[in-house]
């Protein structure tokens, strides 16, 4: 097992290296000059040149890339051109905000998606099955900005149930320690604030959960249908076991593996792909952080931001692969 994890971690190195190279080249291919963007519209040519020298942008690209790699090896993610802060220090609050939201969304997606998929498979071709699959289709194809604004309108403006944007009630701000507000409020025993923080998670969480929820539901359904045709299910039924046990105990264990894969991939996607949700819900997450860095041509932030997201994505998938072994002892790591 440890041997396997070690091997997987070693395999990470070429993947991440290749990725830094591709990202590095792509962002430099985008027209637009960081020095110009930083200095604003009134900048003079001389100043732009001076700043390029200061930022090292006048160096040939391979020198810049090499310097960046050397920095990475030292654990230095570079410095934001815009805020002049080390990216390593600056990135955490954004990452924390996204992790909190993505985790919340994936929990919703898994609970509802897996169960809807199971019930759909159990009662195949019933009205529930058809309805769930139609809803899943709608969920996958609904534009998130429309869904987000509708949610805000219905649950925020009309019903006044839930807050529409942001992470907290700013009139009573959370005293941030870890930047993970759920943990921060629990540590400080501010359970009133914990309630507020959770409330703020609901609408963006639902908006973000729709697509993975639909995908998980469909995956679970097809995977379950396959398993439920197996001999041991018939045997279990013949022995007079309750259907509920057959489905939730015997079938689910075997059906869950492909679903786990999907869950892993979707979690990774939520981390980087939440830009629209974060924009609509004013969520200060990493998607918007990278998006704004792209608008400002803040090269170090784009490079390192994408690197961090990719790293997490890969780690989640490694974690999922390890989970397989826990779920299915037949899977061997060697």
């Amino acid at each position, binding site marked *: 097992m440890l041997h396997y994890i070690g091997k997987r971690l070693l395999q990470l190195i070429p993947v991440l290296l290749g990725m830094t190279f591709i990202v590095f080249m792509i962002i430099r291919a985008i027209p637009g000059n960081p020095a110009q963007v930083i200095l604003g519209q*009134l900048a003079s*040519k001389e100043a732009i040149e001076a700043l390029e020298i200061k930022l090292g942008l006048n160096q040939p690209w391979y020198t810049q890339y090499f310097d960046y790699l050397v920095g990475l090896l030292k654990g230095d993610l570079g410095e934001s051109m815009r805020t002049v802060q080390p990216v390593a220090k600056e990135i955490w609050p954004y990452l924390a905000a996204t992790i909190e939201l993505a985790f919340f969304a994936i929990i919703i997606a898994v609970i509802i998606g897996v169960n809807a998929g199971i019930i759909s498979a159990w009662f195949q071709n019933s009205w529930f099955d058809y309805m769930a699959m139609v809803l899943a289709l709608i969920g996958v194809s609904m534009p998130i900005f429309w869904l987000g604004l509708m949610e805000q309108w219905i649950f925020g403006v009309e019903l*006044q149930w839930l807050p*529409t944007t942001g992470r907290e009630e700013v009139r*009573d701000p959370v005293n941030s320690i870890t930047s993970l507000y759920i943990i921060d409020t629990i540590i400080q025993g501010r359970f*009133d604030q*914990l309630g507020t923080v*959770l409330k703020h998670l*609901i609408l963006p969480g639902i908006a973000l959960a729709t697509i993975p929820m639909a995908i998980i539901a469909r995956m679970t359904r097809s995977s379950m249908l396959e398993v439920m045709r197996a001999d041991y299910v018939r045997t279990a039924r013949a022995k007079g076991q309750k259907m509920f046990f057959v489905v939730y105990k015997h079938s689910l264990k075997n059906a869950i593996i492909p679903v786990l894969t999907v869950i892993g991939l979707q979690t990774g996607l939520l981390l980087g792909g939440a830009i629209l949700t974060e924009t609509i819900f004013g969520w200060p997450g990493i998607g918007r952080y990278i998006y704004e860095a792209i608008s400002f041509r803040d090269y170090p932030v784009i490079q390192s931001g994408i690197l961090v997201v990719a790293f997490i994505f890969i780690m989640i998938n490694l974690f999922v692969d390890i989970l397989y072994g826990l779920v299915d*002892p037949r899977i061997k790591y060697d």
Partner: protein
Amino acid sequence: MRKSKIWSFMLLMFVALTVVLAACSSGDSSDGDTKKDNDKGTTDTSEEKVLVFGRGGDSVTLDPAGATDGESFKVTQNVLETLLNFGEQNTEINEGLATKWEPSEDGLTYTFTLREGVKFHDGTDFNAEAVVKNFERWANGSEDLFPYYKSMFGGFAGDESRVIDSVTAEGDYTVIFKLTRPQAPFLKNIAMSPFAIASPTAFEAAGDKFGDSPVGTGPFKFVEWKRNDSITIEKNDEYWNSEEPKLDKVVFRAIPDNSARLNDLLTGAIDLADGVNPSDGTTVEAEAALQLFERPSMNVGYLGLTSTRPPFDNQKVRQAVNYAIDKQAIVDAFFEGRAEVAKNPMPSTISGYNDDIPGYEYDPEKAKQLLAEAGFADGFEMELWAMPVPRPYMPDGAKVAEAIQKNLADVGITANIVSYEWATYLEKAENGEADAFLLGWTGDNGDADNFIYVLLDEDNIGSNNYSYYSNDETHKLLIEAQTEVDEEKRNELYKQAQEIIFEDAPWVPLAHSTPLLAGDAEIINFKPHPTGSDRLNKVDFK
């Protein structure tokens, strides 16, 4: 063994879900996040008056001298103060940290008398020495550190082009500025947000980190900055004007989406929203709990015609395009009528505006005739660049471009609309790669120089003169106007320049828009400023 793990994992998820559901359905709203429970900006946990101001983006830095973006100045304007202030809703010069200012006859020396008994938030005394240290800090900087210092005062210590030669203290409360040449808008520049006076103790200690926690003399003190999320400032109890500020706290929240920001206002999560779409103006007016604020216009939205690119190198073609476009229809449709149709490169509130200019009326026949005279009787094909982002001076670039496309088609010109991501758009336009492009400008200090010279002088080709317009005559007038201290004579020079520009038609000036804000009906004394930097020291709740 193993199967119990997966079950406990599932169980954990269910528990989490239950906790969440319990949290949402808990009836008591202790966070005042609905309008019904929210007694106007005060939470029921305290009697504090808190104003939450929602805007489109976060600040870049809170060191005003290092900023170039409006979102940064919106905050710093309330934390740090300038020697002179603009008027409440205009750009006339008023007292600030200086109570008197006297220019010499030749316009080369200015003597400022400072307000006494003022302290910075960190307890440092505000005096002549502090002012000198601030100007020294900027003069010894560079353009990437202090961009506005360079653009408004010509250059840094030792530069040939610099305007400010020396700043010296005479006693504790007198500061003397010596200039290398007279600068007509000098006092207006001094009143601009970037030249607010910071605590020398603080910026000497913080170095380049000063922008993370600014220290000034303003009515509010900096408290906390959660990047991309919120900036909190609180009442300065020691403020030199004991009547102000009225609010205990102001929170600036970054909410990028305009519709989401309006939803937040409707739920009471924020009290004031900047950047309201013109199309939402009526919604706000119809809502009893809200009021609409109009920011006095100090901008121009225009269609630039790059004079170095054929056929726009032909004056008749540029005039024809001016006649072809129905500006009034564009203002009615896309600015909801909340804009003035433009005929000059600057709005009518700016001193030196030439109202005798007739402007190009909508006259397709005349446009066709001019095109025929220029040798384009069958029209021509061109690219029309549409802005990808909404701006106060151009709420919807794509739609305006479509209207212009239709107008041009009516006179035989085929315009293909193109658009790029914003930074790319500006860079390409700056390189003169656009035939015709939509763009605009919001004034910094309410001076004519900040519009005409910045946008249409040959000195600024490759920076803000995107239309590559160059004319020696206007150049001479504009340079002369920069050092002319007699207001009458100076305005005359600008009026002449506007006549030449009108004839040359390097742009189609479209509109001077009135940007909208919306707020809680209980807000009083909020006066939006034309520069976009609003002072909140008088703002209160009923």
